[in-house]
């Protein structure tokens, strides 16, 4: 696009001219340029210069036609011929001195004469520097008459008044654009009339007129009309291709093409700018098709191809620039000529531009070779220049000052064109174009098109000798062809790459590319190719040739290549060349190794079989001199020597290794070479085959990564071939499951590990688990015991959520320590012996044990929660003293241990017998839920603590006590017998309950009572050893449980039932009911006493009494028992009116034993005791 002149590339701007008063020129021209649409200004400082417009040469264009467009016509209209001319007069010239006025009039006259011939519009600008200058209407009218302009075309400017100046400049711009559009319209109409009259002598003139009309339309921004006339000009031009005979044939075609190019460019630009992408693309296609066949004379075809190339390039550039503005387009699929999406991509055009440019180059080379000596061409070309007409060339003849243009013959022109063409390096241009296309396609992820561009680009680089760039591009596109299996394309690319590496002298790459080529699946000729590139024709013969060349090269012992092609490469002495073949390498085709162990796991020292299979796709059988199979355990490496070439095996340093000899190591094309050997390893762990090295000749090695048959990836290109697929092994099971590595197991342990645990563990106690290591055939060196405690359900032995009661020890089960065998103390342990204990993990080293010895330790484990755990103990040791052999042998044992709660503590409160306080809150609670207990104030309450053995073992109890909480400052109650120890540890058998009675009383006037913590000391009953062990040698387990806080309140009423401890049948006794009012208020009490069957009763059944404050009311009844045995007393119930609280005594307190006759007690005291104890148990 850059080769086009500026005036063609940009839309034309209106041109206005101002004359005189140069001080204002820059102000006016800047303002006009900033208008919308902008106006260019052609400023003349003085009136004398206006004759510039007058130099129009009046050629009678109809008579002598020499060209279609003048080269400078458009430029002239854009920069020299204004549409409007505005003289600027200072106001004092207009309204002042008559001498000035006269001068002004003459200036105006001269302007008028100049512009009349061209129809240029006139406007007058008066500059009024002083606002108070007088303005004479007469002079104004005179001026308008003189200038023959309307009143509105006379503008007054005042440069000193900013606000007014702005306004007048705007009106100036408006008037200019109005006049300009009138000018261009009239000019256009004038020329249009010429076309419409149909009396135009030649079609060339029609083309010219149409072009002019279109340009004038463009000046007025009438794009539709411009487009219409450009198209008309274009079509008219196309019609005269075969008709006109004005010029010699070659030049005629050149001129027509140049003009059509200009017209086409204009049309495309207009279409694209108005967003009509589809139309533009369609138009381009028509343009291309219309001129594609107009190749012209055979000696000048390169001109045609160059022109074609330029069409594509320019359109591509136009499309690219417009694509920024018009993003979305929808291809219209018309039925007749569908457009493909591809025609919307600029890259497509660049690609084709490059293609035509290479056509041009070929044609040009032909033309050069056909023409005579080059010096002659040059001297001819010297004086040829572009003529005044577009697309024409002429010889410049200088005779003194006189310059003359002479027309030239076709032959001269061709020579000129050839010499011009030789000046350009087309390769660089082609590379640039292909690169543009390549990058554009790549950015759109259009890989294959991009690759084709890359291929062309690489070819150009290659011919240019830019090997590095060529290689880089070829490498990148080769991978795509490899991936998709386009063998013929890959072949060609590899051919170039091979040549590149040959030129660079990189022997390794040369070998890689050559071998890959030789191994490609090409069987028969795909057709004779003329343009084959350096690869040569893709066929079997060529593959064989390449392979031979490579193997000749590597087998040259001396390093002097006899082949002249390969003389670039030199082996320096002793240097070896190794090609790596891994899973992704394209050289897998060349050689590929599959390794399978016949067993997945072996014992150390026992042998198993290993099969190594090699496959090669090279066309000629390859003789391998030596194979080396390498493992991760280098002791196992195997060397396989070819018996036919024995001298090569004697490489130093391999004597210690295993060397096998086979009669022949030849790899036939596409046939597996299978070798099976036995192998054994003494070292446990993984035995992995790493690589298989094939040595060919003295210096050349192919290193194949070993692959498992089970996870064998098929060879990329050969799988697509229609040939029988072979497998690396004959054994069908191994083919599916064979692995290139095997597991060497460790030795069987000959050591026993015992874990003994006696029954379940109890929460709180330190539980001992003895661990015994017993050697049975192995010495134990550097033994190590690992202990792990694991939750049976899985998961850790720790839960942060419910850690409240045991906040200090967050683990539910804890490994406290490991005590060594008897007599061994921790301090005596060697410093290098490890002993590490964490809460659920322990590590301890054990001393050297001879065969038959044993060693014991004890694990101390403490449970904080009842929980089953799994105890894992593992022993690792080496059976040999040898330091180097660090093969550990492992023994594992595990044991599940239950954790149980030993003792469950309970407690409850009791009131004194037959004495009931009215506790208001308790009544309320009865309705809701009995959450916490309430005790009466100032009253003694009995607290019974019971401890129940929940285990299946007898336990010994040392003490039950209630201790005050540490965090409470003072005790809020007094507890009797709180810290009294049992005289002798009590035995509790499984299921038995042990009780202890405390009495609690509180006289502080508080609402909450903190009772403290129950503390229990116990241990397991040691059975027979109990007597001896009781002397505090064995530790007592302390168990604590906090007593809940209780409420205390003052009961307003206390009811006391008084009756004798027993009654005798028929013997009357008195039953007192005392109602004690503890309040300061008078209490009204309703009571009732129900009849009982066993008693005769005297007294009120129902009544209401008033109990005075702080006093007691006593109800007394006489009762006569009628039946013996335990009998229910008459039921007493009472309601406190004030508190609306009813009271009923509990059942046990409401019965009495009736003897049939007066009993004879031996001892009154014992009777008393019995009755009390009965009460206590209840």
């Amino acid at each position, binding site marked *: 696009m850059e080769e086009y002149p500026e005036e063609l590339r940009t839309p034309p701007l209106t041109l206005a001219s101002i004359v005189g008063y140069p001080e204002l020129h820059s102000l006016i021209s800047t303002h006009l340029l900033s208008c919308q649409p902008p106006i260019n200004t052609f400023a003349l400082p003085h009136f004398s210069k206006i004759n510039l417009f007058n130099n129009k040469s009046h050629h009678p264009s109809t008579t002598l036609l020499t060209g279609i467009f003048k080269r400078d016509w458009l430029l002239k209209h854009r920069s020299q011929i204004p549409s409007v001319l505005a003289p600027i007069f200072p106001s004092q010239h207009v309204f002042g001195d008559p001498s000035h006025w006269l001068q002004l009039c003459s200036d105006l006259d001269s302007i008028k004469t100049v512009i009349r011939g061209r129809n240029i519009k006139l406007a007058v600008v008066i500059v009024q520097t002083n606002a108070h200058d007088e303005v004479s209407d007469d002079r104004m009218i005179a001026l308008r008459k003189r200038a023959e302009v309307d009143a509105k075309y006379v503008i007054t400017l005042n440069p000193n008044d900013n606000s007014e100046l702005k306004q007048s400049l705007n009106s100036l711009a408006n008037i200019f654009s109005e006049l300009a559009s009138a000018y261009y319209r009239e000019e256009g109409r004038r020329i249009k009339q010429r076309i419409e009259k149909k009396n135009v002598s030649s079609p060339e003139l029609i083309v010219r007129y149409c072009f002019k009309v279109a340009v004038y339309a463009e000046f007025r921004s009438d794009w539709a009309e411009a487009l219409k006339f450009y198209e008309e000009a274009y079509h008219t031009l196309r019609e005269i291709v075969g008709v006109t005979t004005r010029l010699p044939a070659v030049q005629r075609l050149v001129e027509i093409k140049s003009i059509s190019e200009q017209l086409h460019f204009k049309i495309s630009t207009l279409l694209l700018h108005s967003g009509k992408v589809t139309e533009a693309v369609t138009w381009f296609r028509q343009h291309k098709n219309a001129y594609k066949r107009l190749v012209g004379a055979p000696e000048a075809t390169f001109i045609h191809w160059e022109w074609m190339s330029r069409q594509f390039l320019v359109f591509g550039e136009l499309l690219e620039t417009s694509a920024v503005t018009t993003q979305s387009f929808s*291809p219209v699929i018309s039925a007749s000529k569908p457009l*493909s*999406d591809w025609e919307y991509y600029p890259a497509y055009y660049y690609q084709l531009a490059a293609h035509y440019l290479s056509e041009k180059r070929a044609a040009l080379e032909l033309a050069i070779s056909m023409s005579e000596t080059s010096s002659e061409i040059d001297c001819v070309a010297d004086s040829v220049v572009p003529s005044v007409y577009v697309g024409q060339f002429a010889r410049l003849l200088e005779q003194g000052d006189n310059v003359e243009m002479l027309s030239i013959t076709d032959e001269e022109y061709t020579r000129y064109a050839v010499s011009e063409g030789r000046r350009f390096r087309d390769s660089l241009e082609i590379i640039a174009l292909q690169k543009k296309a390549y990058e554009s396609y790549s950015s759109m992820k259009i890989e294959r*098109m991009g690759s084709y561009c890359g291929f062309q680009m690489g070819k150009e680089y290659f011919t240019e000798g830019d090997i590095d760039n060529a290689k880089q591009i070829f490498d990148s596109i080769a991978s795509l062809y490899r991936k998709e299996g386009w063998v013929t394309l890959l072949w060609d690319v590899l051919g170039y790459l091979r040549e590149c590496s040959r030129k660079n002298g990189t022997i390794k790459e040369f070998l890689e590319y050559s071998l890959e080529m030789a191994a490609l699946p090409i069987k028969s000729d795909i057709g*004779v190719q*003329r343009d084959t590139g350096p690869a040569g024709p893709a066929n079997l013969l060529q593959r064989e040739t390449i392979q031979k060349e490579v193997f000749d090269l590597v087998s040259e012992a001396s390093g002097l290549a006899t082949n002249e092609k390969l003389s670039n490469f030199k082996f320096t002495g002793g240097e070896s060349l190794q090609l790596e073949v891994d899973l992704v390498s394209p050289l897998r085709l060349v050689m590929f190794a599959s390794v399978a162990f016949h067993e997945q796991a072996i014992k150390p020292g026992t042998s198993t079989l290993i099969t190594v299979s090699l496959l090669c796709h090279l066309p000629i059988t390859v003789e391998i001199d030596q194979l080396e199979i390498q493992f991760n355990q280098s002791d196992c490496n195997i060397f396989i020597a070819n018996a036919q070439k024995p001298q090569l095996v004697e490489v130093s340093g391999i004597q210690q290794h295993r060397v096998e000899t086979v009669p022949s190591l030849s790899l036939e094309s596409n046939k597996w070479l299978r070798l099976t050997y036995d192998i054994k390893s003494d070292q446990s762990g993984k035995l992995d085959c790493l690589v298989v090295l094939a040595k060919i000749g003295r210096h050349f090695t192919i290193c194949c990564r070993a692959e498992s048959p089970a996870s064998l990836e098929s060879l990329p290109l050969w799988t697509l*071939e229609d040939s029988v697929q072979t497998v690396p092994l004959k054994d069908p099971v191994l083919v599916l499951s064979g692995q290139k590595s095997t597991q060497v197991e460790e030795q069987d342990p000959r050591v026993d590990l015992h874990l003994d645990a006696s029954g379940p563990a109890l929460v709180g106690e330190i539980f001992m688990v003895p661990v015994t290591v017993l050697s049975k055939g192995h010495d134990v060196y550097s033994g190590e015991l690992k202990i792990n405690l694991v939750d049976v359900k899985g998961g850790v032995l720790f839960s942060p959520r419910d850690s409240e009661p045991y906040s200090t020890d967050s683990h539910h089960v804890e490994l406290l320590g490991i005590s060594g065998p008897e007599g061994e103390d921790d301090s005596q342990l060697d410093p290098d012996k490890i002993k590490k204990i964490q809460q659920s993990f322990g590590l301890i080293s054990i001393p050297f044990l001879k065969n038959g010895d044993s060693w014991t330790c004890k694990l101390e484990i403490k449970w904080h929660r009842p929980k089953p755990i799994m105890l894992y103990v593992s022993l690792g040791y080496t059976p040999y003293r040898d330091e180097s052999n660090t093969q550990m042998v492992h023994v594992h044992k595990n044991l599940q241990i239950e954790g149980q709660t030993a003792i469950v503590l309970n407690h409850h409160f009791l009131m004194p017998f037959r004495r009931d306080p009215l506790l208001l809150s308790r009544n309320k609670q009865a309705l809701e839920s009995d959450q916490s207990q309430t005790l009466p104030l100032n009253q003694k309450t009995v607290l019974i603590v019971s401890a129940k053995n929940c285990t299946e073992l007898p336990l010994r109890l040392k003490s039950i006590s209630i201790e005050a909480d540490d965090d409470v400052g003072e005790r809020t109650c007094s507890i009797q017998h709180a810290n009294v120890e049992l005289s002798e540890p009590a035995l509790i058998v499984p299921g038995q309950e042990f009780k202890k009675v405390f009495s609690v009383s509180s006289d502080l006037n508080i609402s909450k009572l903190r009772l403290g913590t129950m503390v229990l000391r116990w241990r397991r009953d040691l059975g027979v050893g109990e007597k001896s062990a009781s002397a505090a040698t064995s530790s007592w387990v302390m168990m604590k449980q906090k007593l809940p806080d209780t409420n205390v309140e003052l009961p307003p009423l206390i009811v006391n039932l008084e009756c004798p401890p027993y009654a005798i049948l028929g013997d009357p006794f008195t039953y007192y009911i005392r109602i004690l009012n503890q309040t300061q208020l008078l209490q009204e009490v309703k009571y009732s006493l129900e009849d009982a069957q066993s008693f005769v009763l005297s007294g009120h059944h129902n009544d209401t009494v008033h109990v005075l404050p702080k006093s007691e009311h006593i109800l007394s009844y006489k009762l006569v028992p009628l039946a013996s045995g335990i009998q229910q007393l008459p039921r007493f119930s009472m309601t406190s009116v004030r508190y609306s609280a009813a009271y009923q005594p509990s059942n046990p307190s409401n019965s009495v034993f009736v003897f049939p006759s007066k009993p004879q007690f031996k001892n009154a005291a014992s009777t008393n005791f019995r009755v009390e104890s009965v009460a206590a148990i209840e």
Partner: protein
Amino acid sequence: MIICVAVVGHQNNPLFIQSFTEADDALKLHHIVHCSLDVVDERVNNPKKSGSMINETFLGLLYPFENYKVYGYLTNTKVKFILVTTDLDVRDADVRNFFRRFHAAYVDAVSNPFHVPGKKITSKTFVERVSTIVKSFGLSSAG
């Protein structure tokens, strides 16, 4: 005149490619067929852009390149047929007809019990049949 036909597999690998031209531009035709796969991909991935092409095996003109026109056809098993012609004026109906016959020949070739799906087609019968179809291309419209 048809100068090249090709069958392209799932991985965009060539299964069959045959050129019918005296000029030695077989390699170039391979390139053109390979490039046309980009267009097929684009068509298949953006069916909206190309209008009512959904469920249509015939892909129409893929792209014009130099003097060639490339047409495409996509079978239900996602095997692509590519046709390269030098004719300037090709009728869609002719191309459709060609592809229909070519498809039939392909189906017969891969139905051979000895043919492994996904491998190159080497059947001689197929080659002969394709040559016949190629030779008769456009004749129906002419006659």
